[in-house]
């Protein structure tokens, strides 16, 4: 229990730090730096999680794992809704994303939201990457703390 809180505090502090380094105008740089950090962490994490687990059957199996076990281990809850077009695009909905709850409860500070989602996008992309899946992961927010993660599998 305690450790997840520690991560949440660290994440918040990291966002502040990266933002101050990137400067006011460099919104994109801040987001991409955090995303890159998340990517590395995600690669490492998925190795630990899947050490003893059997291989995944298919892409959908992987996504279900991300939504359930992976998300639960990181954010103490599952993804609330998973949608797909069965052609490599997945939308993961979290009605109460833990890293957004301290930011706001509504539309206030909406422009700050991307910074708080970047690391997690990287986490997912890194995890998928080490499972052999190339993807792009973006996030969308309209009313905090709910958000959606868009995952598009890249064709080799």
């Amino acid at each position, binding site marked *: *229990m*305690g*450790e*997840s*809180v*520690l*991560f949440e*505090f*660290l*994440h918040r*502090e*990291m966002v*502040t*730090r*990266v933002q101050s*380094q990137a400067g006011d105008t460099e919104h994109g740089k801040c987001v991409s*730096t955090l995303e890159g*950090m*998340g990517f*590395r*962490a995600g690669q*490492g*994490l998925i190795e*630990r*999680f899947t050490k003893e687990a059997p291989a995944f059957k298919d892409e959908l199996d992987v996504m279900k794992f991300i939504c359930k076990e992976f998300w639960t*281990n*990181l954010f103490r809850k599952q993804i609330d809704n998973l949608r797909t077009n069965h052609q490599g695009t997945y939308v993961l909905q979290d009605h109460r994303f833990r890293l957004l709850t301290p930011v706001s409860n509504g539309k206030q500070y909406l422009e700050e939201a991307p910074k708080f989602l970047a*690391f997690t996008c990287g986490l997912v992309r890194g995890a998928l990457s080490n499972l052999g899946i190339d993807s792009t992961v973006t996030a969308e927010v309209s009313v905090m703390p709910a958000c959606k993660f868009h995952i598009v599998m890249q064709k080799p």
Partner: protein
Amino acid sequence: MSRQSRRRSEKQQIDWHLPSTSSTGSAYHMGTELFILTYGTLVAQLCEDCEKDEDINKVLDKMGHNIGTRLVEDFLARSNIAQCRNSYETAEVIAKVAFKMYLGVTPRVTFWNQAGDDCSLFLEKNPLRGYVEIPEKHSNLLYSNMICGILRGALKMVRLQVDIQLLHDSVNDDKVTEIRMKLMRRHKAVRTVEKEQKHPVGT
């Protein structure tokens, strides 16, 4: 809820029980893994941002300080620890309750000085260190320095000024991580509810 046995004599034997809300076994590892790996990426990023190891150490300490000032509220809410009466109790709480709760390890508290306000926390197996290799050019890096910042910030919030230093970090050849902690003067503050003071701290 945590309990503490009454101290009868000079013997500092206090049983600290973990609060019932703490997690166990595998759930621990997962939560810690995320923190450990994230911390690793942070340090890697700082190595890119900063030229000198000393600067990295300072940033880690500052970030830790900011985290600590907020973490202490979380800690007090979860642990329900009563006010510590002296440095020994403070160190014990830090080692046996706080470290255990957030990092899953319990450092050894030892090497007390004569005055009883200076001690070392020894971590035989530093969890932050898992799977980390520091290249030669960062020999002055205090990898776990954020822990010191967190402790400093947290203790500041309970009006304890400390001088904390990471002496050895097991990233180098040393096997253990040693944090030297000197509890300095307690800030005088008017409290509405005071526990019985056995002896003043840091005079």
